[in-house]
C-alpha cells in the first residue's frame, strides 16, 4: 500500500512538470511560431493530464473495497482513458518530430466503462459470475496495458533517436537535458512493460521512479533555459 502512495505522488509530480513544459512550449510557440512546439505543447498537456488521472485512479483503487463493482467500473474507464492519452501524447511528439524533419525550413476515444452491478446482497451464483467477470476484466486490462506500453516504448525509441540526432547536431547542454529526460522516460516504460508482463509491483515502483527522474531532468531543462526561477 505504501508503494501505491509513492507511485501516486511520483505521478502527480511528473504531471506537474509535464504541464509546466506544455505551458512554456505554448508560450515559446506564440513568439517563435513553430509547429514542433505546438505538438510538444499538446503532447505534454496530454501526458500531464494522464498522469494526474493515473494518480487519481490509483488513489481510488487504494481507498475503496475490492468488491465495490461500480468503483471498479470507473477505474476501468479511467485506465482506458489515461492509457490512451499517454499513447496519444507520445504519438503527437513523434509526429511533431517527423513533420519537423520533413519540413526543416520552418520550422480513440476509449470505450466507456462497462455497466456494473452492486455486489451487495448477492447470491453465491452471482458472486461466482462476478468473480469470473472480474478475472476477464483483469485480463483485458493487462492486455491493453501491455499493448499500450509496447507501443509507447516503440514511439519513445523514435523520440530518443531524434533527440540523439538533435544533440549531435547542436551539441548544446539544453538538448542534452531534453535527451536525458526522454531516455529516462524510455527506460521507465521498458520497466513498466516488464512490470505488466511479470505482474511485478516492484518493477512498477522502479519504473515510475525512473519516469519521475526523467521529468526531473526536464524540470532542470526548464530551470537552465530560464523559465523556472530557483
Amino acid at each position: 500500500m505504501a508503494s501505491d502512495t509513492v507511485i501516486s505522488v511520483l505521478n502527480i509530480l511528473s504531471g506537474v512538470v509535464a504541464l509546466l513544459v506544455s505551458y512554456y512550449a505554448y508560450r515559446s510557440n506564440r513568439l517563435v511560431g513553430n509547429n514542433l512546439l505546438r505538438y510538444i505543447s499538446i503532447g505534454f498537456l496530454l501526458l500531464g493530464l494522464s498522469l494526474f488521472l493515473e494518480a487519481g485512479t490509483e488513489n481510488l483503487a487504494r481507498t475503496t473495497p475490492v468488491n465495490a463493482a461500480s468503483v471498479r467500473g470507473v477505474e476501468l474507464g479511467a485506465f482506458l482513458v489515461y492509457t490512451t492519452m499517454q499513447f496519444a501524447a507520445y504519438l503527437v511528439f513523434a509526429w511533431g518530430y517527423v513533420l519537423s524533419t520533413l519540413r526543416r525550413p520552418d520550422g480513440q476515444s476509449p470505450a466507456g466503462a462497462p455497466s456494473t452491478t452492486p455486489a451487495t446482497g448477492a447470491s453465491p451464483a452471482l458472486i461466482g459470475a462476478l468473480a469470473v467477470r472480474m478475472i476477464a476484466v483483469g485480463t483485458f486490462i493487462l492486455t491493453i496495458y501491455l499493448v499500450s506500453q509496447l507501443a509507447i516504448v516503440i514511439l519513445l525509441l523514435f523520440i530518443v533517436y531524434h533527440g540523439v540526432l538533435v544533440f549531435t547536431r547542436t551539441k548544446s547542454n539544453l538538448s542534452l537535458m531534453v535527451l536525458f529526460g526522454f531516455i529516462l522516460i524510455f527506460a521507465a516504460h521498458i520497466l513498466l512493460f516488464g512490470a505488466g508482463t511479470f505482474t511485478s509491483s516492484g518493477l512498477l515502483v522502479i519504473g515510475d521512479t525512473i519516469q519521475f527522474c526523467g521529468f526531473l531532468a526536464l524540470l532542470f531543462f526548464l530551470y537552465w533555459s530560464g523559465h523556472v526561477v530557483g
Partner: protein
Amino acid sequence: MVTLSAERPRSSLKIYLDILETVRDEGNTRPTRILYHANLSHDRLVKYLGELNTRQLLEERQDSDGKYYTLTAKGLDFINQVKKAEAFVMGFGLTI
C-alpha cells in the same frame, strides 16, 4: 538532387532581437550603429526600426546630430522573453 543550405536566413524575430540587443548594449544608438551591428541593408533597417517603434519596443528621439533610438521597458521585457524562448526551443533542436 536538392542541396539544402546549412544556414537558414535570419527570421524577423531574430532580426528584432539583434536590433534590440544592439540598442540595449549601446544605450542611445544612431541608426548607422544599428545597421552595422545588426548587419542589415538600409531599407530593411528602416522597415524594422519602424515596426519596433510602432510596437513601442524602441523609442525614436531626435537631437542636433539626428535621430537616435533608446530601448523601452517593454523592449527590455521582450528581449528577456525571446532569450528564454530561444533557450527553450534549443532543447528541441530548433532556433528562433
